[in-house]
């Protein structure tokens, strides 16, 4: 059939299995939006308040499901507003296709109204990007964009489509969805070597990351841990890969990780790193990182091997397949001494937690997790509340924890939570802070418009807590620009947006409010009064390693 570029976009999206897009209209995508109007029975468009929110929503949609998230924005400011969202997805390897309009080809390069070279702008934060200057190549370019986004280590791809390409017509025929590029397969030799290392290890430690979630390798990971009697720790991106109540699971390790998880990694003689990139937040001082251990590093991205931490044995390959085959090769064993040592470490960790009846961050998380079911998607913004959630929330199923790991994007949460809910239809809880929430709270309008059943829990301490915490410990309490003390009334704000809201100052009030909010089918904001002197602990000092970890505040002061 001979159809316009804009129609080709619709047909190709449907062909690629996309039924939901997030976006915001504008002058150079008006043709696309005209087609969205006509295809509204097959493609659901979620209009956000700001393009950044749309990008985070597409990201949240992808993280919660593993499907490719799609976002559409106009040229110029529409496109640049996507950039933070695209970079967030890039750093966390989230499959996403961003479609931007641009001025007609004849006006490109002339600083036309709302023209920006979004290809140049997004080159460093996309897996690949395209500008389509000929309608004949539009469909295949979009197909390739989807293929690249989901192949191997996933990531965002941007397709810039000038307006005349949207208007011009050409022949279009549907094609079957192409399989992603084949995943690399780990060599038997390398896996045999890994198995030998594992068999002779006395203190193994499995360190899993986001790759085990995007590679759908939870079951294989757990099977391996059980067979070799190894504890499992994870990076923040690896949270939810292993159920929190699994006896071998020690939780998040690293900068603000669980003491037992970080310490046992430090004492291990073998680290099996699966789908991780040894981010500086997960390793601390690289010179002092896990000096006693040999490292087996398995990843789908060859460039991650030896990038941050040299591996004793690097294995390139699909994580699910690699772990399954490795599990078949290793000997079943029990390591009672090592398990005992880990129990000791756990005891030290548990003793450091002081129970409290106040509205503390941990109490807030405990109530949320006791009320919410295992399928609920928990989203965070970035800062102290994010770390408290990562430390404390007992995630049970993969893809139920969405957080901006690599880029650390404050303002990620609102969009991502909306996207996650639309993707999964599961109850969604956003844990945020007053600082992060302030960045993209305009998306409350979206949550209300689409009647998203989400609970927004604001840990409101009146400060930019994470930076303030550093200022307290390492900058002589110079609270430079971290004291917000804004006069914003979040309850009234929620109501002004058409949502409901309440303020909680006690744990009992929060429990009641959260139960009601969770049962409700529309967005609710719960503003929790949290003490600004609550710190995220443990933490290492700047440049420190796990040996220098600060576990109690009085040590630091």
């Amino acid at each position, binding site marked *: 059939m001979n159809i316009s570029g804009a129609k080709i976009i619709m047909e190709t999206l449907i062909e690629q299995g996309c039924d939901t897009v997030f976006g915001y209209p504008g002058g150079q995508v008006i043709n696309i939006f005209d087609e969205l109007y006509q295809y509204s029975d097959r493609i659901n468009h979620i209009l956000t308040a700001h393009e950044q929110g749309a990008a985070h929503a597409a990201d949240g949609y992808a993280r919660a499901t593993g499907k490719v998230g799609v976002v559409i924005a106009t040229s110029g400011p529409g496109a640049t507003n996507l950039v933070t969202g695209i970079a967030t997805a890039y750093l966390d390897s989230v499959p996403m296709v961003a479609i931007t309009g641009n001025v007609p080809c004849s006006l490109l390069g002339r600083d036309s109204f709302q023209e920006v070279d979004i*290809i*140049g702008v997004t*080159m*460093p934060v996309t*897996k*690949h990007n395209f500008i389509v200057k000929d309608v004949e190549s539009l469909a295949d370019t979009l197909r390739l964009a989807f293929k*690249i986004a989901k192949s191997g280590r996933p990531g965002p791809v941007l397709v810039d489509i000038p307006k005349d390409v949207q208007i011009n017509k050409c022949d279009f025929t549907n094609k079957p969805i192409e399989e992603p590029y084949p995943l690399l397969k780990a060599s038997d030799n390398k896996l045999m070597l890994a198995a030998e290392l594992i068999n002779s290890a006395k203190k193994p430690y499995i360190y899993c990351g986001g790759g085990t979630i995007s590679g759908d390798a939870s079951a294989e990971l757990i099977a391996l841990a059980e067979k070799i009697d190894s504890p499992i720790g994870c990076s923040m991106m690896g949270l939810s890969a292993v159920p929190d109540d699994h006896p071998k699971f020690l939780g998040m390790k690293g900068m603000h990780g669980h003491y037992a998880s970080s310490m046992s990694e430090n004492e291990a003689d073998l680290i099996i790193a699966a789908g991780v990139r040894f981010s500086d937040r997960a390793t601390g001082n690289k010179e002092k990182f896990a000096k006693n251990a040999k490292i087996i590093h398995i990843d789908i*991205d*060859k*460039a991650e*091997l*030896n*990038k941050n931490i040299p591996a004793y044995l690097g294995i390139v390959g699909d994580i699910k397949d690699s772990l399954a085959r490795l599990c078949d090769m290793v000997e079943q064993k029990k390591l009672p001494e090592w398990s005992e040592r880990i129990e000791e470490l756990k005891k030290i960790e548990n003793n450091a937690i002081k129970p409290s009846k106040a509205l503390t961050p941990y109490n807030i998380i405990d109530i949320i997790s006791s009320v919410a079911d295992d399928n609920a998607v928990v989203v965070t913004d970035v800062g102290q509340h994010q770390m408290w959630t990562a430390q404390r929330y007992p995630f049970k199923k993969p893809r139920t924890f969405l957080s901006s790991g690599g880029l650390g994007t404050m303002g990620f949460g609102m969009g991502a939570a909306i996207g996650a809910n639309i993707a999964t239809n599961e109850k969604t809880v956003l844990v945020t802070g007053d600082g992060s929430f302030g960045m993209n709270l305009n998306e409350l309008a979206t949550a209300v418009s689409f009647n998203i059943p989400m609970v927004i829990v604001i840990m409101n301490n009146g400060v930019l807590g994470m930076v303030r915490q550093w200022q307290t410990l390492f900058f002589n309490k110079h609270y430079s620009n971290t004291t917000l003390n804004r006069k914003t009334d979040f309850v009234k704000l929620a109501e002004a947006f058409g949502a409901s809201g309440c303020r909680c100052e006690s744990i009992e009030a929060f429990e009641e409010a959260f139960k009601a909010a969770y049962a409700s089918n529309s967005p609710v904001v719960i503003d929790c009064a949290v003490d600004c002197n609550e710190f995220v602990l443990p933490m290492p000092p700047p440049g420190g390693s796990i040996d220098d970890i600060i576990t109690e505040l009085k040590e630091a002061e």
Partner: protein
Amino acid sequence: MERFIIAILVSNLAGVLTRVSSMFTRRGFNIDSLTVGETESQEFSRITIAFRGDTYIKEQLIKQLAKLHDVKEIEILDKHETVIRELLLIKVKNTSETRQDILAAVDIFRSKIVDYSTDALCCELTGESSKIEAFIELLKPFGILEMCRTGIVALERGSNCLKSEQL
């Protein structure tokens, strides 16, 4: 710090050079020289890069290059099995006192005078980078007015090709 030369086949599309060079900038790889030009096939351009670094930098540079969608083939060229050439154009002051010395240098290096005026002359020289550098050193005392170098191009000796299936 060893010097490496790598040859890359990339899709012959607008913006590919930017993709490659911006990745180098972003990852902090320092390049001595980079040349790009068309190949026997319309589909591909060939980029030749010379850089200094340790094994870590070499490995990362190659792995990161391999991740770029438009990069099709990469090879580290073995210096002993490779023909490496660079072109220099250099303009020096031409005075009656120095003229004979300059012409002697041009002769010994098998350079060519490609432009001549009463106060300046321009020489062309092709060769490996070390030869080019020696020639420049030699001309320095005569007063270099301006110069430009192409950066290196390189091909493996024998029948080995970057795109293996072409043989």
